[in-house]
């Protein structure tokens, strides 16, 4: 570990923390329907869209209506994306002449982008036409992110409103998230990325003659615009197969920092939106602090493990940390940091190959995802994810102050506990059960690149990433098979909708409750005690669930390495 490495990590943390308040303020105004600087530009567009959709910003929805609208919208998005891929050969903007995407892969990809996962069983430059990339994938990058934000806002309203039935209007929240948050930020980011050297063209791939005289096709395309939203919306689906390790997708340290910051920006700011909406910003900061604690622990362990490298390699006289699978322009510090960020948030973009990390270095991204990506998390998804754990923590510990547990004046009762448990349960269901099946299926095991515990980790990582809607790949696993296309698709659907529906149900239940006034008997949820409690519950519940799987995967691998055996 180097001073330089730590400075880069601290710069990142500082920038994110500084963004929380201004971005949070802007988003709060947007979702409260107040005027912002952008209202002049997007106001007419917004009203026009409502008119076309036959709704209005004054129309409010019960949680079931909200959920139905959300499901309908996602289904429509899935179908559109599926058929765009299947028919791309006959559609325009296809200079490379890509043929139809096979059905299982098209299913996997459509689910993947609709659920904000962006698991990619395809190589972008060799599979997708420009039209699919722009009208299909990029559109889903926007709306899947906006969907996540909408759910988070709806759940926040569960706490900020009292004794009403409605949790907002899905169409309005979706439109506002897209128009006032994602779109303007993406435009600015894309322009800077172009300035930094990313391609943004609809022209054909370029043929180049290398120094050796060989011929090479250099893939191009509308990269900058897609990179902007893939990070901001924590989608993570790379334009190129190599994702953010590719020089066109991530040219230098500045673009790397911007991408890392934009992964966390909205998720972190949502804690502030929460604080503002419930009328006490400290509540938001307490959640932010919990995320920060878990994040920093992850960064320290991951950076330490990578910087320490492999003792077996070191013993051969190769000093230094583990540089396998890392880009020299980022080095160990930024690769480790990026890996923790991308899995803490449900982004899934990578600037290094996680498969090549040391066992413990790879353990951190795995744990991040297994916890449900609640450390900042996917835009919206991370926030409603951590609120589920808040409900759990408050319920168990809240009883210890001798009152029916309450959070922000809302009593946490059977209905909330039931829904939170259901949502938390669906992750191990998808991750562990599907892994359990895959590791004993010869066809599925054939996809792994390495034997032993490392191969196990590859499969576990794939299902974990899919169910957590992360989309990053450990690498090493050949995912484009019928088995993985279908089962990973199922994992993604479970991880997304089996969390969303209970989260909205909780919002619907909370919004109808009275707000109990704070008294000396109320357990304070805006201080260090709460941060400690919440972090503890997250680590213990998450840790207990996945301990056996981690023991036979990365932990066994790490301990074997210490004994001189690698996989």
């Amino acid at each position, binding site marked *: 570990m180097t001073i330089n490495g730590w400075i880069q990590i601290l710069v990142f943390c500082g920038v994110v923390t500084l963004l929380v308040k201004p971005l949070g303020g802007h988003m709060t105004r947007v979702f409260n329907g107040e005027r912002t600087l952008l209202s002049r530009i997007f106001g007419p567009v917004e009203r026009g869209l409502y008119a076309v959709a036959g709704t209005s910003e004054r129309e409010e929805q019960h949680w079931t209506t909200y959920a139905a609208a959300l499901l309908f919208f996602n289904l429509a998005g899935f179908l559109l994306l599926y058929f765009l891929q299947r028919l791309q050969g006959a559609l325009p903007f296809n200079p490379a002449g890509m043929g139809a995407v096979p059905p299982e892969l098209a299913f996997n990809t459509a689910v993947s982008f609709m659920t904000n996962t962006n698991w990619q069983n395809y190589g972008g430059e060799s599979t997708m036409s420009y039209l699919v990339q722009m009208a299909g994938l990029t559109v889903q990058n926007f709306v899947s992110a906006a969907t996540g934000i909408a759910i988070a806002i709806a759940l926040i309203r569960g706490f900020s409103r009292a004794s009403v039935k409605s949790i907002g209007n899905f169409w309005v929240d979706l439109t506002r998230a897209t128009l006032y948050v994602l779109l303007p930020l993406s435009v600015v980011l894309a322009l800077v990325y172009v300035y930094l050297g990313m391609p943004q063209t609809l022209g054909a791939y370029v043929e180049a003659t290398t120094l050796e005289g060989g011929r090479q096709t250099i893939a191009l395309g509308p990269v900058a615009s897609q990179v902007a939203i893939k990070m901001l919306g924590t989608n993570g689906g790379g334009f190129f197969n190599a994702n953010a390790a590719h020089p066109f997708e991530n040219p230098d340290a500045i673009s790397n920092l911007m991408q890392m910051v934009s992964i966390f920006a909205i998720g972190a700011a949502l804690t502030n939106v929460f604080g503002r909406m419930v009328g006490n910003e400290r509540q938001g900061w307490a959640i932010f602090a919990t995320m920060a604690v878990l994040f920093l622990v992850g960064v320290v362990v991951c950076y330490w493990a990578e910087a320490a490298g492999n003792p077996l390699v070191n013993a051969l006289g190769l000093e230094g940390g583990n540089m396998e699978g890392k880009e020299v322009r980022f080095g160990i510090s930024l690769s480790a940091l990026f890996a923790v960020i991308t899995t803490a948030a449900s982004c899934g973009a990578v600037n290094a190959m996680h498969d090549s990390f040391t066992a413990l270095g790879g353990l951190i991204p795995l744990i991040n995802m297994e916890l449900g990506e609640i450390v900042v998390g996917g835009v919206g998804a991370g926030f409603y994810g951590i609120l589920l754990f808040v409900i*759990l923590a408050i*319920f*168990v*510990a809240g*009883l*210890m*102050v*001798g*009152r*029916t547990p309450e959070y922000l004046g809302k009593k*946490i*009762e*059977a209905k909330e*506990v039931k829904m939170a*448990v259901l949502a*938390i*349960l669906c992750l*191990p*269901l998808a991750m*562990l*059960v599907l*892994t*359990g*099946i895959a*590791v*004993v299926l010869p066809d599925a095991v054939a996809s792994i690149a390495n034997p*032993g*515990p490392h191969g*196990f980790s590859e499969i576990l990582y794939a299902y974990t990433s899919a169910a957590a809607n992360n989309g990053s790949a450990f690498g090493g696993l050949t995912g484009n098979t019928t088995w993985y296309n279908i089962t990973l698709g199922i994992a993604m659907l479970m991880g997304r909708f089996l969390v969303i529906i209970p989260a909205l149900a909780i919002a619907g239940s909370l919004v109808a409750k*009275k*707000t*109990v*006034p704070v*008294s*000396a*008997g*109320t*357990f*304070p949820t805006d*201080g260090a*005690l709460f941060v400690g409690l919440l972090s*503890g519950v997250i680590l*213990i*519940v998450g*840790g*207990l*669930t*996945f*301990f*056996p*799987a981690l*023991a*036979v995967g990365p*932990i*066994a691998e790490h*301990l*074997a390495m*210490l*004994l001189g*055996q690698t996989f």
Partner: protein
Amino acid sequence: MSQSKTTSLLDARILVPAIGDAFRKLDPRTLARNPVMFVVAAVSALATLLLVRDLSAGGGNIGFSFQIVVWLWFTVLFANFAEAVAEGRGKAQAESLRRTRTETQAKLLRGDDINNFKFVPGTSLKVGDVVLVEAGEIIPSDGEVIEGVASVNEAAITGESAPVIRESGGDRSAVTGGTQVLSDWIRVRITAASGSTFIDRMIALVEGAERQKTPNEIALNILLAGMTLIFVLATATIPSFATYAGGYIPVLILVALFVTLIPTTIGALLSAIGIAGMDRLVRFNVLAMSGRAVEAAGDVDTLLLDKTGTITLGNRQATEFKPVRGVTDEELADAAQLASLADETPEGRSIVVLAKEKYGIRARDMGSLHAHFVPFTAQSRMSGIDFDGSSIRKGAVDAVLRHVDRTTVASTGGTASVAVREPQAARELQAIADEIARAGGTPLAVVRDGRPLGVVHLKDIVKGGIKERFAELRRMGIRTVMITGDNPMTAAAIAAEAGVDDFLAQATPENKLNLIREEQAKGKLVAMCGDGTNDAPALAQADVGVAMNTGTVAAREAGNMVDLDSDPTKLIEIVEIGKQLLMTRGALTTFSIANDVAKYFAIIPAMFLAFYPQLGALNIMGLTTPESAILSAIIFNALIIVALIPLSLKGVKYRPVGAGALLSRNLLIYGLGGLIVPFIGIKVIDVVITTVGLA
């Protein structure tokens, strides 16, 4: 029933039958009420089958398997035992209640004539029947006195042997079946049929037969079921992980891991905690009609307390003599004492006491003074004494001044009122009186032969220590509101002295009800106690309504708790018991979940050792062998249930220190303690069983 009859935790009379009950509760229908323990019983049965199979096949490590199975069943039995012990304490109480419910003959009246009755069995009485109960007879069923006055021995339900007065009309008209009339006779209209009387309900409550899961308990059960499912997923996937690694893990070991991981500790003790909570209330001589009410008591935000009897001693007492100018303290005290000698009211007696304490004025013999006592009437609003041609009066200031005017007019024929003759004294008297009233006291003017002497300050005496109780409640986050019929000025003064947060002066049943509704609209939970029929609407509206046992039938029906001692201060203890109940559940849940960390470290290395020997590094406790590790974990898991039975019955101690401090304390004990204790416990068990050669 009385506190003196409390049974100790380790009473053999309860423990021995509980062992039998623990086995009886293995009935699947009983077990099904508790999802966690039902699952444990199911997998224990499975493990037993596997053991039988291994026995017949003759393979495997039979000794080890046998011990695992035995400890699995012990886990279930210990849980049943905990519940049985909790119920046993209630059963003992129910037994003593049943003895009072002897078969009685009732005198069923045919009409208004109390001599026209026929004997019928008490059990045949219907609601609305009217019976006659005479001295020495047992009241056949619950009812309301509609005629007569009688002293009644209610020891059967309150444990208090001093008889109480029951009379028709007013707030003391309710009688309870099974209690005995000691003197006189009463006509009682039956309000509860046999089987649904107060005592029947008490028996059912203390026995736990009517126990329904409370909202919080339901929520907790859902959480525990969820945790159980998570561990189903965590353990059920292990075999395929092992297969991938080329190994095999016996089902018995998976079962052992599963049972140690699921929250058996809290699952086993959950119902015992609930029963014990009700039981603690019964020990306080409070009957909760539902567990929901006990739980709500812990959540109470606002406490409505009647001033009289709860906050103040109930009677006003003289605290000071304030003479007008020109009159000495002794002079006033002497006159006041004389005027009060024959006054048997508590106020009058307190004047005599004060005169003696402060000025050494002894009581004088009324007879030797040839005095004539003038009693208090509602018309004159004063009392006094006439002797040796002298007359002393004490009473409300305006009444006394009017009296002075009248007598002066009569005796002297003059027309000047006292305000004219002695303007100074009259004005001063009024000024002193106003000052006393402002301070929350009651002024009592004293005149002797038409001359105002001064004012006696009668004061509501705030109970000793009550201010500290209210401060305690404030730290608990509970707001206290004093309810009084006094005028706002007096109320404010007493409220300030007692340290309540707010008061409702000139209270009527309507504005009491409105106050409760207002508080509830703000999202608060309100507790109150009351006894009169006019309290019934408010009792019903309040989230926790404690009816006094001396109260009317209407009040008793409206409340969700009955205080057998009729002590309104008990509301505070009830709140604490409610909080204790919730805290105990939370503490044991936290403890149970935190325990799992150590169990993983015991079992996971042992489990995978065969094919991932490097995982032996996780055996941080240094357990001797894989078998001893697994066995130690499961033994610890079973024994901790027994070890925690006393805590679950007694409850976690509640301290009124504010939520933050309370939580950090409990987190430290039950969270951090829950992490550390099993590491030590499992290690110790490992050492023991290896030494004695069990593994």
